[in-house]
């Protein structure tokens, strides 16, 4: 029996936006043992950001120049739409629009980028700029399989097949 392990890890890349940017490219270098990219997440934070307002988009492309595999709208998370808000119910004891109440926290989007990629190319296209802000790009990847151990099949060794006897 052969036992192997496959690990998933995350790379975090920080991008500072201090002025209006029409096009800001950047690269994410992948470790050598990456088998495939499995998830992407982008968050934004800064002073004076208006919640849910789109600050721009980030596009991701694998370095073998295949099509862009993900385009992400950059927004600050925190507040959202709630059922109570939409139907006009006000409850002073229950703030239902908050992300840590509804559970609508930033989540990874699944992607599947296989191939010989050592760099992921990405670029930020700015939309609305009011104050400097920071973007965090999370890239989840799967490492190549690692061998843990090889265990001989004990059952087969313990009970060797007995030769058949045929009486004629």
């Amino acid at each position: 029996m052969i036992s192997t392990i496959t690990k998933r890890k995350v790379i975090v890349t920080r991008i500072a936006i201090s002025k209006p940017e029409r096009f800001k490219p950047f690269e994410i270098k992948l470790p050598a043992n990456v088998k495939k990219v499995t998830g992407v997440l982008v968050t934004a934070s800064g002073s004076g950001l208006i919640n849910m307002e789109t600050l721009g988009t980030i596009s991701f492309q694998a370095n073998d120049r295949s099509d862009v595999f993900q385009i992400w709208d950059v927004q600050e998370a925190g507040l959202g739409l709630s059922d109570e808000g939409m139907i006009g119910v006000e409850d002073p004891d229950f703030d239902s629009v908050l992300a840590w109440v509804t559970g609508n926290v930033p989540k990874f989007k699944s992607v599947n980028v296989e191939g010989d990629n050592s760099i992921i190319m990405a670029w930020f296209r700015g939309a609305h700029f009011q104050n400097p802000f920071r973007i965090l790009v999370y890239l989840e990847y799967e490492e190549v399989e690692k061998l843990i151990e090889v265990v001989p099949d004990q059952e087969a060794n313990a009970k060797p097949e007995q030769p058949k006897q045929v009486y004629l």
Partner: protein
Amino acid sequence: MEARLIDKIFSFLVDADGATVNKKFDLDKNVKVVHGILLSSDRPRLLFYRGSQRIEISGDEIFPEDYESKILMSGISVPPDSKFRRLGNGVVAGNGEVKIQYKDTPNSSASFVPYRVIVTLQCEMK
């Protein structure tokens, strides 16, 4: 036979603006695998907007530095079984050491007051 899952809870105080808190916790020796993680706080707004951490279990880095706490949070409206961030097929407890390097970063959306960070690990017991 179904695995027996138990929640192990650890917490620490963040008492200074912009502080980095390094904590080490030990899991029960009967913990076999860690299946999920959840972050919460007595002041969730501060954890959401200001928190980031590096988490290591048994010497294995699970989340790198600058990994925002908001991604590991959930909400009271979420069903209990769905609150935890799943760690794939689980992380073997190994020597049972859990290391957390938590960083508080100033943010105008949440003014600093001392707050407590609560880390809940969903563990499979031997």
